[in-house]
């Protein structure tokens, strides 16, 4: 059963799913941490940090990709260090695709988690403190569990954004068939090819099905989470 898909197309589909999954996982912890900082802490330079963290949302993805290429190329400051210390190369591998979409999707994760944390009733956190919970334990046992639906929603957004990521990915990961060619890149290549309209149409439909499935699944999980933490809506 190949649904009329060629090996290249299968590879693109698989890679897209894997990259999107890693992207969602990669943004979860730093996104939640920054969201908590912005939602619950006051510190100098908060406004500047807030804008910086939201920058990928408004920057052209190609610009983000170029920036990452400079930073993470084997001669770049970050890439050079990784190469020397761990012998890891990022640029033009599938890891670069994850990195690119994670950076692009980060603000979405941040906004969703932040709203969720801001909506957690601080009076519940106060109650936890009077019951003997340290500030850290309060965050772990009250704030985060109650914000979980929003944190999960942020991860879903990151997953979805990653499925559609094109600009930054093509710059920093390239368009290598079977290695870094995700669905949007494959679709783009197919359209460039003479007589590739049929393939492009198939890829478009696959993209739609994948995105629809992901969103439907996330809605189910989100509903269950909301019931679990007692914010039934």
């Amino acid at each position, binding site marked *: 059963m190949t649904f009329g898909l060629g090996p290249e197309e299968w590879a693109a589909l698989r890679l897209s799913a894997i990259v999107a999954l890693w992207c969602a996982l990669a943004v979860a912890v730093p996104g939640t941490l920054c969201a908590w900082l912005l939602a619950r802490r006051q510190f100098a330079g908060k406004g500047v940090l807030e804008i910086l963290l939201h920058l990928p949302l408004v920057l052209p993805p190609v610009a983000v990709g170029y920036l990452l290429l400079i930073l993470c190329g084997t001669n770049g400051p970050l890439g050079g260090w990784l190469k020397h210390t761990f012998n890891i190369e990022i640029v033009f591998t599938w890891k670069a695709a994850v990195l690119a979409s994670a950076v692009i999707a980060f603000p979405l994760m941040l906004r969703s988690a932040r709203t969720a944390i801001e909506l957690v*009733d601080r*009076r*519940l956190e*106060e*109650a*936890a*403190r*009077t*019951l*003997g*919970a*340290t*500030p850290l*334990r309060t965050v772990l*046992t*009250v704030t985060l*569990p*109650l914000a979980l639906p929003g944190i999960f929603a942020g991860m879903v957004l990151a997953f979805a954004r990653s499925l559609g990521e094109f600009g930054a990915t093509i710059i920093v990961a390239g368009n290598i068939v079977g290695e870094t060619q995700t669905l949007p890149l494959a679709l783009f290549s197919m359209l460039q090819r003479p007589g590739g309209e049929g393939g492009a149409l198939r890829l478009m439909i696959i993209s739609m099905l994948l995105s629809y499935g992901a969103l439907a699944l996330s809605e189910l999980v989100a509903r269950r989470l909301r019931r*679990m*933490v*007692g*914010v*039934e809506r």
Partner: protein
Amino acid sequence: MKLDLQLECARPGFRLAADLHLDGNAAGVFGPSGAGKTTLLHALNGLLHPRSGRIVLDGEVLYDSSMHLHVPPHRRRVGMVFQDARLFPHLSVEGNLRYGERLLPAGERRIHFGEVVELLEIGSLLERSVQHLSGGERQRVALGRALLASPRLLLLDEPLSSLDRRLKTQILPYLRRVHHTLGVPLLIVSHDLGEILHLTDILVVLDRGRVAGHGRYLDLAQDPRASGILRSSGLLNVLRLRPIEHRPEHGVTLLTFAGAPPDTATVVAPYHDGSDEEIDIALRPEDIALALRRVEHISIQNQLPGEIVSIHPEDSHILCVVNVGTDLLVDITCQAMEMLDLAPGKRVWCLFKAHALQSLALDGMGSAYSHKSAVPELINE
């Protein structure tokens, strides 16, 4: 509990400057809204950072501005029951109850789960989600949760004010029971005098951010600085009475003062369920009439002989303290005082109707009063 507190807290538009020394097992904080009651509690549990001052609880300094010391809330072991319960919605009833208990090393748990569950009668709720609890159940769970953290002082911030009167009378006995059985010192904030007096007669009266007085209720009621505030919600006599005879066919129960010798006066109250447990009965000072001798041929059931202890003229009326075996506050008009020519030491009779007696709490739990009176606030189910 030995509490020494001297502090100043400031918030926009409000300032609390309190100086307080409490020694005892329970005290009530009374005052109108905006008096600083909750601010005081939050300074005690550490959620609020006072501007200056010093708080010492049982010899341990919790806060001292001159030493820059502020023990954080989680290390104070000062429990709190909030007005709005604040149960964790993502945990079951048992999860809520055990939240504080789990944070405590096993050796420091002085109050045991089973004991609390039994005292508060919440055994059947343990598996439930807290979303589906009634108001009274929520407050009981909140109380249990605070107790299981084994606090050395329990603060209660208007724990019953969100409940209707019927529920209040059902929850109050739990508070009293918990206090007496587990011996946890408590500080209860309320603007309902009856609620406090059911638990303790030691009061702290707050008014606009200042301590207007603290000490025994009867003394405060006679203290011109504090009595104005106490009066604002209406003074009360709270009598601890023990049933001695039930006469359901006559619709009455005979009671006597708890702890008094058997030959002291009996009080006639509307009949309830026939339980023999002691109950707290509230009697308003303005519902008591004074007479110079026993009055015959009158429907009023209660006539207690006593002696006037003191007389305090207020604006347009007189507050007398009459000892009838226990001190009673009696409120009469100036004209009545002149007519009877009252003075301290004079023998008088205190008259009040059985129906003027209101139960503060239904002690024999589950066995509520079933008086079919038209007075809904009275001891009813």
